[in-house]
C-alpha cells in the first residue's frame, strides 16, 4: 500500500499487530490513499491516524460503512483490547475534518435512510462480498442530527462534564434535543447501551467492563500462581502411555476386592508409580528454597492432589504415600477429596505436599502445561484416557492411551532427568506388576 494506490471497500489496508494479535484493517470505503502514517514495520501510537483516503462522491454517502467503522472504534475503547485497532477509524475521522471530500462519520448518523445512501454510493461494490449483512432499510432516527463535520456536539456544560468523566466522546452520542442537542438522557442511554442502541441495527458491540475483585481463596490461588510462575523456570514434558495393562489390572482388582476396600481409580496406581520413581530420583520429591539455594529432598512422599472445588482449586495432601499400600492410597484420596469438597479439610491436610498430581482428565484435552506447586519442583498432569489407534508394526490396533503432561523446575532439574522420571512412570504403568514388585524390593 502506498500513496496514490486505489483501494476498494473491504480491501485490507494494513495488518496491525498489537501485543496480543494481528488484525487486518479493512478499508471502510473505496478511494485512493492520500497519506500513510508510516512504512511497513513501523510502530504507531495508539489512537493516531493510520491512513487518509481520498474518497469520491459527496459527503454523507458512506452510511453502510458506518457500522464496521464503529465496531472498530468500539473495540478501541475497551482498555484491554488491542487498541491499535482504533487507528484507522480515528484517521478517517481526522481526515474528514480537513478534507472536504471525506465524509465524516457523524454525518452518517443523519436522518438519511441507510438504503438511499447505499444507492448514492455510486462506484462502491453492491452488497459486499464479504457477507456483511446488507444495511437494513432501517427507519431513520427520529432526531434531526444535523451535526456537520467539525461541528462541536451540542450539550450543556453539565452533560459535557458527565461525558468527559465517563470517558465518552460526545461526537459519538446522538442528540435528541432541539438542533440535535445531547440531553442528559441521551448520554445515559449511550452509557447504558452504547451508541449502538441508537443505530438500531441488531447486533451490538458489548463495551461493558465488569470489574471483579479477586478476593479470598481466588486471591490466594492467584498469588500462589504468580509466585510459581514468576520464580520457577518451567519445563513441561509430555508423553503418551499405553494404559491397557494397568486398566486390565485395575478392573480385575476392583472385581475381586474385599468389601472393606475402596474402589480403585487410576490415581492410586499413578501415586505408587511416583513413589517408586522418586525413590530413584530423590531430586523430584523436594522443596527448592531459592533464596537460600537449598534443595530440600524429603524422605516422605507427600502427594498433593489438585482438586476443583466449588470455591476454587485446592490441593489436599496424601501424606507418606511411601508407607501406604494401593488400597490405603485409594481410601485416603476418597477421604481427602470429600473433605476438600465439603470444606471440612484441615489446614495440615491442605499443605505440606512434596510433589503434586493435577488432573483435568475427565474434561479431555491432549496436553496441559501444569504450574508447579511452589516450592515443589515437579508436578504430574494427567490427561484424558481414550482409545487411540496404535501401529503395532503390521496394523493399527485400538489401545487405551493416556498422555501425561509433567512440569519440572528447570533450575534444579535438567530436561534429561525430567524425561527419565516420566519414562520411569510410563514403564511402571505399562507393566503395572512391576509397581508391586519394585515396592516389595
Amino acid at each position, binding site marked *: 500500500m502506498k500513496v496514490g494506490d486505489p483501494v476498494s471497500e473491504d480491501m485490507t489496508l494494513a495488518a496491525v499487530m498489537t501485543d496480543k494479535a494481528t488484525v487486518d484493517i479493512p478499508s471502510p470505503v473505496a478511494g485512493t490513499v492520500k497519506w500513510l502514517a508510516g512504512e511497513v514495520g513501523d510502530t504507531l501510537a495508539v489512537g493516531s491516524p493510520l491512513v487518509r483516503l481520498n474518497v469520491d462522491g459527496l459527503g454523507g454517502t458512506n452510511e453502510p460503512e458506518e457500522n464496521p467503522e464503529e465496531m472498530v472504534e468500539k473495540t478501541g475503547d475497551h482498555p484491554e483490547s488491542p487498541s491499535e485497532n482504533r487507528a484507522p477509524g480515528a484517521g478517517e475521522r481526522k481526515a474528514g475534518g480537513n478534507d472536504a471530500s471525506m465524509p465524516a462519520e457523524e454525518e452518517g448518523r443523519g436522518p438519511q435512510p441507510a438504503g438511499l445512501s447505499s444507492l448514492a454510493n455510486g462506484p462502491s461494490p453492491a452488497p459486499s462480498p464479504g457477507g456483511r449483512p446488507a444495511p437494513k432499510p432501517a427507519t431513520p432516527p427520529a432526531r*434531526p442530527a*444535523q451535526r456537520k463535520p467539525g461541528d*462541536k456536539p*451540542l*450539550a*450543556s*456544560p453539565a452533560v*459535557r462534564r458527565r461525558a*468527559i*468523566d465517563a*470517558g465518552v466522546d460526545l461526537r459519538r452520542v446522538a442528540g435528541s*434535543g*432541539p*438542533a*440535535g*442537542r445531547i440531553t442528559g438522557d441521551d448520554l445515559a442511554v449511550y452509557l447504558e447501551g452504547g451508541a449502538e442502541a441508537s443505530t438500531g441495527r441488531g447486533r451490538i458491540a458489548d463495551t461493558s467492563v465488569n470489574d471483579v475483585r479477586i478476593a479470598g481463596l481466588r486471591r490466594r490461588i492467584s498469588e500462589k500462581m504468580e509466585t510459581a510462575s514468576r520464580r520457577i523456570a518451567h519445563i513441561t514434558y509430555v508423553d503418551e502411555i499405553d494404559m491397557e495393562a494397568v486398566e486390565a489390572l485395575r478392573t480385575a482388582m476392583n472385581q475381586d476386592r474385599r468389601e472393606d476396600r475402596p474402589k480403585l481409580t487410576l490415581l492410586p496406581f499413578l501415586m505408587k508409580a511416583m513413589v517408586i520413581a522418586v525413590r530413584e530420583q530423590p531430586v523430584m520429591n523436594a522443596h527448592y528454597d531459592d533464596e537460600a539455594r537449598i534443595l530440600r529432598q524429603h524422605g516422605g512422599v507427600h502427594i498433593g492432589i489438585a482438586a476443583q472445588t466449588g470455591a476454587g482449586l485446592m490441593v489436599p495432601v496424601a501424606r507418606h504415600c511411601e508407607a501406604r499400600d494401593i488400597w490405603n492410597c485409594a481410601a485416603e484420596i476418597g477421604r481427602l477429596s470429600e473433605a476438600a469438597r465439603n470444606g471440612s479439610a484441615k489446614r495440615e491436610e491442605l499443605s505440606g505436599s512434596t510433589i503434586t498430581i493435577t488432573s483435568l482428565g475427565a474434561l479431555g484435552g491432549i496436553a496441559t502445561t501444569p504450574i508447579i506447586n511452589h516450592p515443589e519442583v515437579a508436578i504430574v498432569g494427567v490427561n484424558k484416557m481414550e482409545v487411540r489407534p496404535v501401529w503395532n508394526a503390521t496394523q493399527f490396533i485400538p489401545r487405551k492411551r493416556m498422555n501425561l503432561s509433567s512440569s519440572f523446575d528447570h533450575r534444579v532439574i535438567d530436561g534429561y532427568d525430567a524425561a527419565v522420571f516420566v519414562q520411569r512412570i510410563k514403564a511402571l504403568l505399562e507393566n503395572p506388576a512391576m509397581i508391586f514388585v519394585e515396592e516389595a524390593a
Partner: protein
Amino acid sequence: MNDITCQFLVIGAGPGGYVAAIRAGQLGLDTVVVDDRKPGGTCLNIGCIPSKALIHAADEYFLMKEAAAGRAVPGVTGGAPSLDWAEVVGWKDGIVNRLNNGVTGLFKKSRVKLVEGRARFLDGKTVIVTGETGEQRITAETVVIATGSEPVELAALPFGGKVISSAEALSLQTPPERLAVVGGGYIGVELGTAFAKAGSTVTIIEAAGEILPVYDADLVKPVRQRLAHLGVTVMTGVKAQGLAGESSDLLVETAAGEERRIPCDTVLVTVGRRPVTEGWGREELVLDMDGPFIRTDETRRTAMRGVYAIGDVAGEPMLAHKAMAEGEMVAEIAAGHRRVFDHRAIPAVCFTDPEIVSVGLSPAEAKAQGIDTSLGRFPFAASGRAMSLGREDGFVRVVARADNHLVLGIQAVGAGVSELSAAFSLALEMGACLEDIAGTIHAHPTLGESFQEAALGALGKALHI
C-alpha cells in the same frame, strides 16, 4: 532560604494563576504561587477592577454635572458638583487593597503558599524565585505559567514623561486638562470616556477606520454618538508619529497624509497588550510558540510534560474570565481529573458608554462560516425600562442558525448591558435555540426583556416592535 518542593507551582497570581492555586489547594495538592506584585494580577491591580471604579466615579460626577445644568431627569437639579480626583483614586486603591487581601485570605483558606518575588525557570520542574529576602529554589511536579500580559509600547511614543500606559492612567492625581488617547480599542475608549466625564478634553486617535475595531458598526455607532455628546474628538485612520515641539504636542499623520499637532498634557497609549513571554526563563524550557503566545493543547498543556500555560500568555482572548476557567481546569487536571477546555461562550464586555457585550458569533462571522442565519434585534428605544432609565440608545441582537434556530451569538449595546452577559453566555453554553429564549418568561420591566424580544424577532414573532 530553604528550598521548597511542592506538587503544584503557579507562576503569576493573576486571575488565572490565583484561581488555579486556590482550586489546587482545595483539591489537596501541595500548592505554591509566585508573584512579585500583590495577588490579583493586572486585572485586580491595574486593570479591570480599578478602571471600573474610576469609570463609575466619573459617571457619578458627570450625572451630577448634568443635573446641575438641568440636563438630567426633568425636575431634578443640583448645585455644581466638585471633584477631588486624588480622593477618588484613594477610594479605588482601597477597593484594590480589599481585594488583594481577599485573595490572600483565600490562599490561606485553601492552604496555598504565596511566595513573593520574581520566578525564573531553571528547567521544566524548577524555578528560582528572587525576592526581597534573597533567592529561593522551588521544585514542583506540575508548573503552571500564568505570567499574563503587558501594554504594548509604541516606538514613536515610549512610555515615560507625559506618555503613560493604562497602569499609570489609573493613578493620576488629577484628570489631565488635555488627554490624547492613542489607540481606540476598548481600554482607550473606556478610559478616554471616564476622563472626558471627569473634565478632561479628550482626543482619541485610532489608526483603523473605526474605533473598537473588533466590533461591528452597528454596535459601535451608539458609542460614537455618546462620545460626540461628551465632546470627545475621535480621529480615525490616523497614526501617531511622536511628540513634537517645545510643548511636545502629539504629532499625527492623517489618512490623507497630512501632519497634525494635537496639543495635550498627557498621552495615554493603549494600542494593545502582548503576552509576557520574556524575563522568566522561557529560554530554559522547550516550549512551542503560537505567534506571540505559548502553544497549548485543549488542556493548556505546553510542549513540555507537566508544564501548563494559562491566561493571556496562552492565547486570545486575553480576558480574565477565560484565564480563571483555564486555571480551574489545569488544577483539576493536576489533581487527576479528566478535563478539557471546551467552553462554547467566552463573553467580551466593553465598559464604554454605552456598554457593549458580545458573545459567540457576530452576523458577519456566521456568514463567513457559510451559515444561513436568522437575526433578531430589539432596540432599547422600544423598551419601557430603557425609557424609564433615561437611556434609550442601543439594542440587543441575536444571531441564530436559520435551519434549527440554534443560537450562535448574542450582542448588545446599551447602558448597563454588561450585566446581561450572564444570560447571553448561559444561553450559548447550554446550546439554547431561539425558542428556548422566546419561551422563557423574562421579568418586566427590565432591559433583559429585550433579549426575549430579540429572540421572538428572529422567529418572526416579535410582540413589541
